[in-house]
C-alpha cells in the first residue's frame, strides 16, 4: 500500500491515524466507561500531562473545541461515553478522527448508525475535507448517498474488484447491476418452476416487531421454501431468530399452524423446528464436542428410555445421519472443530434431521461453505420440500434465494417490501430494488 507516494504499512489503527489515515466504522468505536474527552484523546494524553499528571482542564477544553468542529457542540466533554446516545457516541468518534486533519478519511458504513442530523453533520465534514484537498473513502451500499456525495465509485463483489465508475458513468441502475452481478451460470439451484402445491399452514408470523423489525406478518406453508432477502441490517436475521424463539418479539408472536406459540428454542425444538445459525462456529455447533454429541443433542429426549440414554442408541443415530449426509470425518468421535466449514454445516443439518424436524429455519446456510457442500445443501432442501417439510431461507446471497425459493419476501428497514412467487423471470435486479 502506498500513501501519498510512500510505503504505507501501519502497525495498528493508532499508527495509521498518526500517519494521516483516520477511520470511523459502523460498530461502536468508543470506550463506554470513560468520558467523551478521554475517548477523543485516548493514546494521545501525554501532551496534556505535566510530571505524569493529567491536566484535565486543558484536555476537556481541547476536546470541547474538537467537538465544536465536528458539529457536536451539544456534547459535554466530561460526560461518560456510555451515557451518550449511540449517535452522539459516533460524533465523539468523528471528533477523534478529526483531531489531526486526516489526509485520508475512511467512513465505513457509518451512516446506518446515524439519524438525519448526524448524517448531515458527517456529509458537511466530508465536503469540507474535500475542499481542503483531502481524500475521503466512503463505504456504503446506499446508492442515493453514493450518488449525492461521491466523485467516483469503485464496486466490489464477493471480495473482488468489479469496476470503477467516474461521476459521468454513475447511474443507479448500472451500479446495482454491477453490485449484484449477472445471472450465475452454475445450475446447481432448483431447475423446476412448479408452484408450491400444498396450502396447509406450517407457521404464522403475526405482526412481529422487535429491534429492527416492524410489524412483519406472513404465513409459511407446508412443503414450501420461503426465501427472505434483504440487506444485512434489514432485520432478516432477527426475524429468523424470532421464528426459533431465540428473540422474544416486543409485539406480535410466532406460532405454528395448530396455534402453539414459539417462545423459546426449547419449545421450537420440541415442536420439530430446526435452526441453522449464521454464526455457525459459536452458536450452531459445540466445537470441542464430538460429531456424535453434536448430532444427538436435540434428540436426547427422543432417545431416552425410562430416563436413560444408551450409548449405543446415540452412536447408531449419529452414524446413520453422518453417513446419509456423507460427512467427511475419521469417526463420529472426532471433534467438530477439526472439520471444514462445509462439514460442520452438515453436522448442523444432521442434528436437525436426526430429530425429525419438520420446519427448518436457515440463516445464511451456505455462508463460508465450498461449492460441493453448497450443492449438497440445496439437494437436501429439495428432498425436505418433497417430504412436506417447510424451509425458511434467510440469505444475503440473492442468487440462491432466487434459485431455491417457492416464494421470496424482501425486507427493507425491518418491513416486508415485496413478495415474489417462483418464476423464471425473477432476476437479481428486480429483487434488489425492493431491498435498497
Amino acid at each position, binding site marked *: 500500500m502506498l500513501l501519498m507516494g510512500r510505503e504505507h504499512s501501519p502497525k495498528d489503527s493508532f499508527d495509521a491515524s498518526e500517519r494521516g489515515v483516520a477511520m470511523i466504522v459502523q460498530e461502536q468505536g468508543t470506550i463506554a466507561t470513560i468520558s467523551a474527552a478521554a475517548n477523543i484523546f485516548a493514546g494521545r494524553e501525554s501532551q496534556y500531562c505535566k510530571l505524569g499528571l493529567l491536566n484535565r482542564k486543558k484536555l476537556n477544553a481541547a476536546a470541547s473545541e474538537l467537538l465544536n468542529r465536528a458539529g457536536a457542540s451539544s456534547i459535554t466533554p466530561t460526560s461518560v461515553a456510555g451515557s451518550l446516545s449511540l449517535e452522539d457516541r459516533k460524533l465523539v468518534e468523528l471528533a477523534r478522527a478529526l483531531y489531526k486533519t486526516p489526509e485520508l478519511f475512511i467512513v465505513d458504513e457509518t451512516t446506518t448508525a446515524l439519524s438525519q442530523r448526524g448524517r448531515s453533520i458527517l456529509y458537511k465534514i466530508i465536503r469540507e475535507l474535500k475542499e481542503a484537498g483531502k481524500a475521503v473513502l466512503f463505504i456504503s451500499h446506499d446508492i442515493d448517498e453514493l450518488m449525492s456525495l461521491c466523485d467516483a465509485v469503485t464496486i466490489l463483489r464477493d471480495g473482488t474488484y468489479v469496476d470503477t465508475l467516474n461521476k459521468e458513468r454513475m447511474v443507479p441502475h448500472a451500479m446495482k447491476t454491477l453490485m449484484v452481478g449477472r445471472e450465475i451460470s452454475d445450475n446447481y439451484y432448483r431447475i423446476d418452476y412448479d408452484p408450491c402445491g400444498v396450502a396447509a399452514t406450517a407457521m404464522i408470523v403475526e405482526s412481529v416487531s422487535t429491534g429492527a423489525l416492524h410489524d412483519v406478518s406472513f404465513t409459511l406453508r407446508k412443503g414450501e421454501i420461503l426465501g427472505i432477502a434483504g440487506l444485512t441490517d434489514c432485520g432478516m436475521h432477527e426475524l429468523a431468530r424470532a421464528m*426459533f424463539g*431465540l428473540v422474544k418479539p416486543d409485539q406480535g408472536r410466532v406460532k405454528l399452524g395448530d396455534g402453539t406459540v414459539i417462545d423459546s*428454542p*426449547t419449545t421450537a*425444538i*420440541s415442536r420439530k423446528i430446526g*435452526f441453522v*445459525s449464521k454464526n455457525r462456529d*459459536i*452458536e*450452531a*455447533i*459445540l*466445537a*470441542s*464436542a*464430538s460429531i456424535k*454429541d453434536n448430532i444427538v*443433542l*436435540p434428540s*436426547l*429426549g427422543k432417545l*431416552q428410555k425410562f*430416563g*436413560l*440414554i*444408551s*450409548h449405543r442408541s446415540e452412536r447408531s443415530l449419529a452414524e446413520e445421519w453422518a453417513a*446419509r*449426509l*456423507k*460427512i*467427511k*470425518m*475419521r*469417526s463420529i468421535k472426532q*471433534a467438530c472443530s477439526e472439520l471444514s466449514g*462445509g462439514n460442520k454445516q452438515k453436522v448442523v443439518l444432521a*442434528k436437525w*434431521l436426526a430429530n*425429525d424436524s*419438520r420446519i427448518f429455519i436457515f440463516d445464511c446456510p451456505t455462508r463460508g461453505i465450498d461449492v*460441493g*457442500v453448497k*450443492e*449438497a445443501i440445496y*439437494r*437436501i432442501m*429439495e*428432498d*425436505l420440500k*418433497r*417430504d412436506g*417439510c417447510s424451509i425458511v431461507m434467510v440469505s444475503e446471497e440473492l442468487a440462491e434465494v432466487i434459485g431455491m425459493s417457492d416464494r421470496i419476501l424482501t425486507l427493507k428497514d425491518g418491513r416486508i417490501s415485496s413478495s415474489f412467487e417462483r418464476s423464471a423471470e425473477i432476476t437479481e435486479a428486480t429483487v434488489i430494488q425492493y431491498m435498497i
Partner: protein
Amino acid sequence: MKHSISTAAAIGAGEKSGGRLSSSDILKYLPLAGLVMLVVFFQVTSGGRLLTAQNLKLVFVQSYALFLAAIAGAFVIATDNLDFSMGATLGFASACACFAAMVDVRLALPVAVAVGLVVGLANGVAHVVFRLPSFIVCLCMMFILTAATQTMTKGTSMMMPVSMMSFDNTLMKVAVFVVYLAFMLVLFEYTKVGKHLKAIGISPEAARQSGVDIGKMKIIAYMITGAAAGFAGFFTLIRSGAASPANGQTMTTDVIIAIVLGGMSISGGATSKISAALIGTLVITVLGNGMVLSGMGGDAQQLIKGIIFIAVVAVSARGNTSAIVK
C-alpha cells in the same frame, strides 16, 4: 417420521487415519499415570506402609467426604462454573443434622441432604433467576452458612447423640459409596442432565440453540452439589462425632483441586467425567497420607498441593483463555 434424504451430493468419503497417540490421548492418561507414580513413590519412601490393608482403610475413611463431594462437584464444573459454598454447606448441614439427631437420630440423614438441596436451590436461583455472578453468590452463601454454623455450635464442637456412633461402619460406608458412585455415574453419562450440563460447559449459546434449558440445568447442577455436600456433612458428623465450624473447611478448594488433578478442565465441557473426581481425590489423599507416612510432615502438604495444582492447571489449560472465576 423419517426423512428421505437420498441425493446429498457425493463428497469423497473421509479417509481413516491410524491409531496414533495424539497429545490429547496423552493428557487423558496423565492423571492416572501420575497417581500410579505417586503410589509407587510413597510406597517406597514409606517403607511399604502405604499399601497395607490397615492404611488403605484409613485412607478411605479419611477421604470419604471428599469423594462424595468431588463426584458431585464435577456436575457444576462441567458447566464451567464453580461451587465455592460446598465446604460451608457441608459444615452447616452437619450442624443441622446434629440438632435433628437430638430430636430423633433417624432424622439426621434426611435433614442433612434436605438442607444441602435447599442451599443448592438458593445458589442456583440467585445465579439464574436474579442473574448474579455464580462466584459472588457462592462466596456470599459460604459466609452466611459459616456464620450460621458458628452460631449453632456456639463456635465450638457440639457432640452428637452417642447412639449415632453405630452409623460409623466401614462396610456400610463402602456399600453406600458404591451405590452413590453408580447413581452419579449414570446421571452424568446416561441421562439428559449430564449431557446437557456438559454441553453448557462447551458453549452455552450453542447448547441453548440445541434445546438445552440452561437456567433449569444450572439450578439442577447446584442442587446436586448442595445435596452431596449435605450427604457428605452427615458422614463427616458421624465420623468426628461432633458438629463444628471446622467441618468441611478445606472441602471447597479440595474438590476443585481434585477434579483438575483428575484430568478435567476447570472450565468444564468436553473433558468432564466422573473418573476425574475419583482419580483426583485419590491423588490428594495419597499425597497427604504418603507424606505423613514418609515422615515429611504435614506442614509442607499445602505447599506441595499448591505447586502440583498450578502445574496441572498450566499443563491442562493449553491456551484456554476462559476466566476461571465468573
